[in-house]
């Protein structure tokens, strides 16, 4: 190859590179590029991709929890006493529920989860029940809590045909079969290991370990599948020091076993590895795209996409 051609080739590479980065800079494409980079770089910190704002005429008002069932995103739109449903791009496709105490009505719709059939379970903190709807939003029945254990259901998740629900006033986590039979009970009021004050969220990892956000004690407690206490995550080195959490709420585990905890009053999401070592934080107080303002509910889908309800910003933010 002639020297001249080599120089031409090199300079064209330089020119193209400059043009590429200039284009990103001048056309503000950074937010579009970041998710693509994140997709390739699996080990990286999740970045903000988009937000779901709800119907223009009735935007989300105090969205408290979010879940993904099949390819749709379900949000408990708490102050509007309803559930709003979105597709992945954020287009509202459905909403159901209204204020009240009767079938299909809500007073404080909170934890939301789906079963394998695509039915939607919604915990109502004030009505003290869990309503079950079909995927079209039609009320089917109340969850048959055979022992009438539920007093103030908060966080709700379904894993492997088991329903995990936190009871805020009872300071307990109940595990039910989907037919309503209670199979396990964890906690009780207190600050000791294994106890709770106002547990607000629950999740389960691939090893069937149970993670409970113990909001009043500013920590996340981890239990084995039999409900035996294992350890605490609270932001301190080994979970034994003073907590750095401020009103922790949503909790979720990704496919790598990393744990994500929503810090409501610190307006961020703290991430920890399997061993509880801090990894990074997302969010921070603000109204900009990648910021959060009193975030609450958190859901991570099977592609490790994070959905977090951002109550004051009236949206569900998506990080990937």
């Amino acid at each position, binding site marked *: 190859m002639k020297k001249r051609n080599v120089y031409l080739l090199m300079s064209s*590479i330089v020119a193209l590179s400059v043009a590429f980065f200039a284009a990103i800079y001048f056309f503000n494409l950074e937010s579009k590029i970041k998710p693509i980079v994140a997709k390739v770089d699996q080990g990286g910190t999740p970045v903000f991709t988009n937000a779901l704002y709800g119907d223009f005429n009735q935007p989300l008002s105090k969205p408290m929890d979010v879940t993904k069932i099949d390819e749709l995103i379900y949000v408990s739109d708490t102050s509007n006493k309803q559930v709003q449903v979105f597709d992945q791009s954020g287009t509202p496709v459905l909403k159901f529920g209204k204020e009240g105490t009767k079938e299909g009505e809500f007073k404080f719709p909170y934890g939301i989860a789906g079963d394998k059939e695509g039915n939607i379970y919604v915990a109502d903190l004030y009505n003290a029940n869990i309503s079950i709807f079909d995927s079209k939003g039609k009320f089917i029945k109340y969850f048959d809590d055979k022992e009438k254990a539920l007093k103030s259901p908060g966080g709700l998740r379904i894993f492997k045909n088991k329903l995990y629900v936190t009871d805020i006033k009872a300071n307990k986590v109940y595990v039910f079969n989907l037919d309503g039979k209670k199979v396990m009970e964890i906690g009780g*009021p207190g600050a000791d290991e294994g106890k709770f004050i106002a547990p*607000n969220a629950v999740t389960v990892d691939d090893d069937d370990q149970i993670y409970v956000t113990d909001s009043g004690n500013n920590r996340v407690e981890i239990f084995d599948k039999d409900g035996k206490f294992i350890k605490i995550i609270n*932001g301190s080195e080994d979970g034994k020091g003073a907590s750095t959490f401020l*009103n922790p709420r949503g909790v979720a585990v990704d496919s790598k076993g990393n744990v994500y905890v929503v810090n409501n009053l*610190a*307006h961020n999401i703290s991430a920890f590895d399997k061993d509880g070592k801090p990894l990074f*934080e997302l969010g921070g*107080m603000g109204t900009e795209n990648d910021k959060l303002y009193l975030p609450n509910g958190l859901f991570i889908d099977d592609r490790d996409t994070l959905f977090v309800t951002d109550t004051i910003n009236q949206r569900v933010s998506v990080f990937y």
Partner: protein
Amino acid sequence: MSKVKLGFSALFMLLLLSMFSAVAFAEDGVPPTSTNPGPGIHVGDIDNFGKQSTHRTHGNFQNNTNSCANCHSTHNGEDEMLLMKDGEYELCMSCHDGTMGFYDVTAPSGAGTFDDSHLSSSMHNVDSDLTVGSAPGKFASKSGDTAELECSSCHNPHGSANDRLLNETVAGKVFATSSVGGVPTPVPTGTKTITLELTDDPAFVEINALTGTGGLKITKSNGPKGLAGYNTVNDKIYYSQFCGACHDDYFAKRNVGSSTNPIPGKPSTGSPITATHTHDTYTHTTNSASQGRSCAACHYAHGTDATTMRDAAGRTVTDLLQLKDAEGNALFPTQEKAEKYMTDISEKGSSLKKFTNMAVCFACHGPNIAKGQIDPQFLNGSNQMLGRQFIK
């Protein structure tokens, strides 16, 4: 050509270098946040004396605090308190909505309720763009008039000498005054004037029994205690002064409503007033510590509805639902019927009352006015209406 070659190579090198350095810079650890200013340093770990700190929800700030940033934005606030506009109510309600179990302001409590979903609800409508100056019974324009009614109009989330974090300053002035040398004088800052009858909430026995969680006690309030407080003034009067800070005209003696009777001072103004008050109306006495004379005797602080109000016999909707006739049939078979009975039909609404309609008047004055006409089942041994016991 060699010059060109050097130029291009150098440029290429620089470009690569800058790209890598940018990446390296971006990878520089966890960005500092409000609770974690640096790696391994967590605000809140250590108290002012180097000891492990305990958690207290309101107040108890450390000298190296960074908690301010959790609620305030130093340079990008959207109101004069550097808060995000319209964010205050949501901020308070992120805990006080029932998701912490205790101190749920939407559930009935000693302060009434903020739940507006029932019949006859009325409340101090925080988060509704209502101005403090629009308070009924407002005497005169003063600072703080145009401020919006918020949770912080009455409560201080940063801590207070008063029970229930009630403000020492309301509508821009120290509300509490006591007589010094015959002149109403504002009490010194940091003086506890609002003392409430607080008892441990039996619903939270286990939590209250805990030690080592920063002294968190969940209590129930039954209004002002009714004991002599700072400078021998009864705390019921301080309580009424608190309300009178915005509802000036309603803080008065019954007989001040004439020009011949000089008003001894509007405590809410913080300065002694000796001017003659030309007042066309008379008011039920509110500046006395006797039963039925403080604001808290008849009104809730937060709000009311059909399910929290009582009738003159002291019965609530819950009580009515238990009532049975001689044959054992329910007198009020449905919640709906009971709530209808308890509906306040007053033209101006239920006005945050503890009793429906004018039942509170009847509960106190009934036996004197309707002498011998009241069914004895609604009276106690002292010929008083059964509802009277609920009046502070």
